[in-house]
């Protein structure tokens, strides 16, 4: 009895709950959901280095063209980046390296003014860095070069670039993709890179392998005259040709 009155009260009251407000409620809810979804998407893709840094193409102080030097003149990568097959870093050529040729070649070219200036005053050139890994990543150029992996695998067709740009995301996932199945991603060592894929045993070169197809011999393995202290029944855990995937192979 009393309850029914209550319900009637509700009904009457409910009249002021107009369709307009009802619509408003629905709108607000919908917009809220929509914005939530967008936020989620932004976060999701924001977290992806897949879309970051790729295409970073800073103008360099000196208009140096890899296209000209490598692509057309055919100077091998390691001529200027000497030591890359031995060091973790790929050394940036010193001014003296440039002047080695340019004392005679295009000695007067105005585009080389900065270089000559640097050479005369002993003040170094300041190039702008294109490829930069975080400092907690210990990437080692030499290891990859010696596995017969071509520079282009990560740096792209530099010999066709007037101004160098970043072609790969250099993100951890990108590294792992290649470490897990290299055959899909790796460009084998090419002539133009001038990569030295030989071996050093007791200091001197043992054997110079030419750049080889991806599968045979697999990456990281060489046929070698140096006897390897193998332990019977204990193979190396790393699959032939695969890169390591444990944390401390890069982060330490």
């Amino acid at each position: 009895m009393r309850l029914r009155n209550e319900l009637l009260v509700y009904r009457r009251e409910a009249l002021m709950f107009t369709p307009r407000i009802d619509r408003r409620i629905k709108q607000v809810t919908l917009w809220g959901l929509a914005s939530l979804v967008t936020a989620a998407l932004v976060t999701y893709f924001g977290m992806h280095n897949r879309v970051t840094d790729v295409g970073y193409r800073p103008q360099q102080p000196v208009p140096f063209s890899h296209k000209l030097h490598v692509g057309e003149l055919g100077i091998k990568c390691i001529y200027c980046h000497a030591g890359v097959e031995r060091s973790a870093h790929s050394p940036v050529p010193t001014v003296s390296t440039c002047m080695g040729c340019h004392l005679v070649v295009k000695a007067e070219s105005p585009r080389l003014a900065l270089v000559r200036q640097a050479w005369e005053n002993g003040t170094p050139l300041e190039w702008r860095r294109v490829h930069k890994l975080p400092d907690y990543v210990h990437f080692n150029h030499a290891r990859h070069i010696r596995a017969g992996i071509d520079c282009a695998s990560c740096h792209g067709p530099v010999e066709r670039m007037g101004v160098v740009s970043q072609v790969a995301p250099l993100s951890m996932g990108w590294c792992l993709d290649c470490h897990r199945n290299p055959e899909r991603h790796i460009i084998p060592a090419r002539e133009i890179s001038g990569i030295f894929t030989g071996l050093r045993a007791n200091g001197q070169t043992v054997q110079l392998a030419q750049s080889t197809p991806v599968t045979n011999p697999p990456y990281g393995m060489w046929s070698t005259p140096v006897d390897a202290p193998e332990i019977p029944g204990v193979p190396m855990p790393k699959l032939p040709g695969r890169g390591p995937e444990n944390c401390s192979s890069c982060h330490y």
Partner: protein
Amino acid sequence: MQPTPATVATPPHVNGQELQREPLVLGNPTLHDVTEKIAGIAVSRPSWKYWLTLGITGTAAAWGLFCIGYTIATGIGVWGLNNPVAWGWDITNFVWWIGIGHAGTLISAILHLFRQRWRTAINRSAEAMTIFAVICAGLFPLIHLGRPWFAYWLFPYPNQMQMWINFRSPLVWDVFAVSTYLTVSILFWYLGLIPDLATLRNYVKRRIPKALYTFFSLGWVGSARHWQHYEIAYLILAAISTPLVLSVHSVVSFDFAVSILPGWHTTIFPPYFVAGAIFSGFAMVLTLVLIMRWVLNLENYITLKHIDNMNRILLATGMMVGYAYAMEFFIAMYSGNEYERYAFLNRAFGPYGWAYWAMVFCNVAVPQLFWSPRLRRNVVVTFIASILVNVGMWLERFVIITTSLHRDFLPSSWDYYAPTWVEVSIYIGTLGIFFTLFLLFAKYVPVIAIAETKAILPGAQPEHHVVAEAAASR
């Protein structure tokens, strides 16, 4: 709740005198009285007392938030943690708050399923308390991180690192448990609120509040279909959150149980923690409800019977906790594991012995008072006891965490831990946040479930004709 047409049973008689259930609402108010009383709070001007308390709690909350900012900007080093003791007040507070939440869920879910009608007086505030407690709890795992800005790494989301979370870690289970708990609690609370919000919508006159209540009552008109859907949804949610009462704190207890530390690595932890949680939760409910009852003079709605019932639960859970304490010791001695044995001896007689014995007093000794029916219905005693139990349960977590850490396996690394002002401030801050939220809740949301209360009024239920007539004749 709509009355179900039921066959009227003849009530039991004792020597001709008819036995009456103790009424759950005193003063025999009409339905309108109930609305007036509870909805009235929302429109009435709050007293200076209210503003004063709000001011105090608000300040505490602000100070706490500042200290959190200071910690994040400077580093965990501003806390007193050191090498052996890497968790201190932070995790203690986390477990304490989480535990407090549990009473709310228990009351709203389990007691609902068991048709414990007396819960209607307290379930609303208990659920609110749950939510606020879980919010405070959730704060600590976040800010205790060394690099909180990477907290999102604890969630499994696809990323450029191709890194996944470590599902073996109990901390990950924690993340899921707590977030689930928060979501379900909020849903449950809000669903229960809808009819009452509608009532308020109709009750209040000022435009903005009306608009707000209108919005949040989601067009509730109280039609039979509304009620039917509401009932079903409420039942389902109750069913969902019932296991949570047990699971959440079990998972929290895994944080310790799966470790190898003597004093942590114990199989008794899940039930022990759940019992403790309900124990502390009910203590907190009592504290809040008693204050509310006094401030908003709701004596007729939160009756001594309610307090009595809750004190019974305190007594029961308190004894469960006491049993756990005893059993831990027994196992430690019985195991013959020297590290285990030392850990517990150190707990009771080591540098933190004071905390241990204080804990035993608060959690085991104090509840024993409630064997006496008189004390169970004594508001003052209950209030003090509830406070003591809260303190005791905080100490329990502190003892478990700190004493196990500060002396573990190699004596060379043993050390002592004491909090800094920052840690203390953050704890006070969370208390501030909690009470601020609760005060706002008490002001703007029906603190007692109006609809449900109406459903348990005399006459609202199929009753013995005598009572029915009595009611009708009024």
